[in-house]
């Protein structure tokens, strides 16, 4: 990469043919990703056939709009923090356990990972709803007399999203942690460090890139997440994604939907742009 040869004639032809191999993929991306993005840009700056900034103004001025952006950021941050909290011990145990246990732990992370988000959300509905498992069990045990509101609220959305996101943290973290030789911790202990000291000063810094990769991925995925908030949120518009969907499907307000979608995209790209300085985007994406 660093040293670009001045190419000879045959190599130039060959290099060009390699670029050509890339072309079909580029065409697909241009048609399916960039054409729609272009369409969104056009729509977002248009009102009744004329150029207008009204759709962007709405996001800033109307409380409903910007508060949904704030809520989305909040939910995404919470989901990221919780996923990291739950994912870390799992990745750590998988990296330190014997081969058999590592396999079992990773399999139990893979199971939800490979299961459709819809299926998992359905599972949480069954568990959390008014006549769901938790409520009926608690009522059968006589702990409560009438069902708790567990689903169709913020908490349910959080639980459902964390459940989806934990594997995305576990995989890069596991990759980073399993590369740390166990002798390092032993050396740290032998030098007089307590377990928590060694963890904070040795293990955590060394696993930081994996944690960062997972956390960025989870945060960005959460920002645009649609299914779980929609189904577990009980019809309340909690996330930006629902705002986009509602403006299209219910109100046919394409301009409003476009401006909201593009604002979200700008936030996501800004995050990638910042993180790219520390950790190449390809590294973050490459985890799946």
């Amino acid at each position: 990469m660093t040293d670009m040869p001045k190419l000879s004639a045959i190599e130039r032809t060959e290099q060009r043919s390699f670029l050509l191999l890339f072309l079909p993929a580029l065409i697909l991306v241009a048609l399916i990703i960039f054409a729609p993005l272009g369409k969104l840009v056009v729509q977002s700056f248009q009102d009744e056939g004329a150029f207008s900034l009204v759709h962007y103004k709405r996001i800033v001025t109307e409380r409903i709009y910007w508060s949904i952006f704030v809520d989305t950021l909040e939910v995404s941050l919470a989901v990221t923090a919780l996923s990291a909290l739950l994912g870390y011990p799992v990745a750590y145990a998988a990296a330190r356990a014997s081969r058999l246990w590592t396999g079992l732990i990773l399999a139990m992370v893979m199971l939800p990972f490979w299961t459709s988000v819809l299926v998992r959300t359905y599972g949480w509905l069954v568990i959390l709803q008014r006549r769901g498992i938790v409520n009926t069990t608690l009522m059968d045990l006589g702990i409560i007399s009438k069902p708790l509101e567990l689903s169709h609220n913020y908490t349910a959305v959080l639980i459902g999203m964390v459940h989806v996101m934990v594997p995305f943290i576990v995989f890069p973290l596991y990759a980073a942690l399993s590369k740390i030789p166990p002798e390092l911790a032993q050396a740290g202990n032998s030098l007089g460090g307590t377990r928590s000291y060694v963890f904070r000063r040795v293990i955590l810094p060394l696993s930081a890139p994996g944690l960062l990769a997972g956390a960025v991925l989870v945060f960005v995925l959460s920002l645009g997440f649609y299914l779980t908030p929609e189904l577990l949120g009980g019809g309340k518009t909690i996330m930006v994604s629902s705002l986009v969907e509602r403006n299209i499907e219910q109100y046919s307000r394409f301009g409003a939907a476009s401006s909201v979608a593009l604002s979200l995209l700008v936030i996501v790209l800004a995050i990638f742009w910042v993180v790219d300085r520390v950790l190449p985007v390809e590294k973050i994406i490459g985890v799946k």
Partner: protein
Amino acid sequence: MPASHFESVSVRNLVKTYHTFDALSDVSLDIAAGEFLSILGPSGSGKTTLLQVIGGFTGPTSGKVYFGDTDVTNLPPQKREIGVVFQNYALFPHLTVAENIAFPLKARRVGRADCEERVAQALRTVDMEGFGDRPIAKLSGGQKQRVALARAIVFEPRLILMDEPLSALDKNLREAMQLELRNLHKNLNATIIYVTHDQREALTMSDRIAVMNKGKLVQIDQPKALYRAPADHFVASFVGEATLLPVTRLGDRQIGLGGATLRTPDVTTDGKLFVALQADTILLCDDAEDDADSNYLNGTVRDLVYQGESLKADVVLDDGTAIACRIASHHYNLRSVPELGHRIRLKMHVEDTIVVPG
């Protein structure tokens, strides 16, 4: 086996420019048909780039490559008819031994019966009869080496290129394979271009050796000549493992070192000069000895290290220059080995007193 299919190779003014440096700068080279030529150099010297250009895997920025009289510079590798053996053998792991060897024949649509016979013949040549059905993963390093060789010769190429093919083998096997390669070369009368960074390997096997450094061809000569008359400082240190000491030119055939005047076969150039001292050409001698063909040096023994078959003595010459000499550790010698701190007299043949430009 008919030898006619091997050809001579000429490389004319090859240049390969990378962004910041020249991997090859103006390299010209002629290799006779049937010659075993080694390209010797440290890593980054351009030797692998040269092999890549001859093989057609990369094109030169400028310059030409000829096989016989044919200009092949713009031919892709598949049209060059060359057998290549890479460092890691690059055998196809999803094919058996026989399928690997048959690969170039199938590519040339050789008939089935003919193909089988030639594979069997190639296996015989490399002493691997009966291994045809083995999967590659089941072979030892030496066996892989032989299969790679068989695959490179089976289609009667014009030329065989080898890129450090023995470097993955352990020492004993490597030495055995060196001899086998030499014999194979003789039997096939093959044109072989052999890239290596191991000077002993190059000296053992080659008809001629081309020494490269920093993208330039520094010297091309027969092994003995290269060893005896290195073209410069670099060749002397790389090929002979010599200690190079700066010397002053005192006359046409005289240099000054360690307070003594030494005679040399020839000193042609002015400027910075070095004497290339090979530890094993410096011998102990009595105070009385005085021979017209010898140069004599006086010094003090600073250190003695026992190294098995020899003793290595660090000697400080009278003006403070440090040199090393190797004393074979048999008992005839041990009797006369001086002790630490004692005076010592050394001699070196005039013809071994090689002076090179810096």
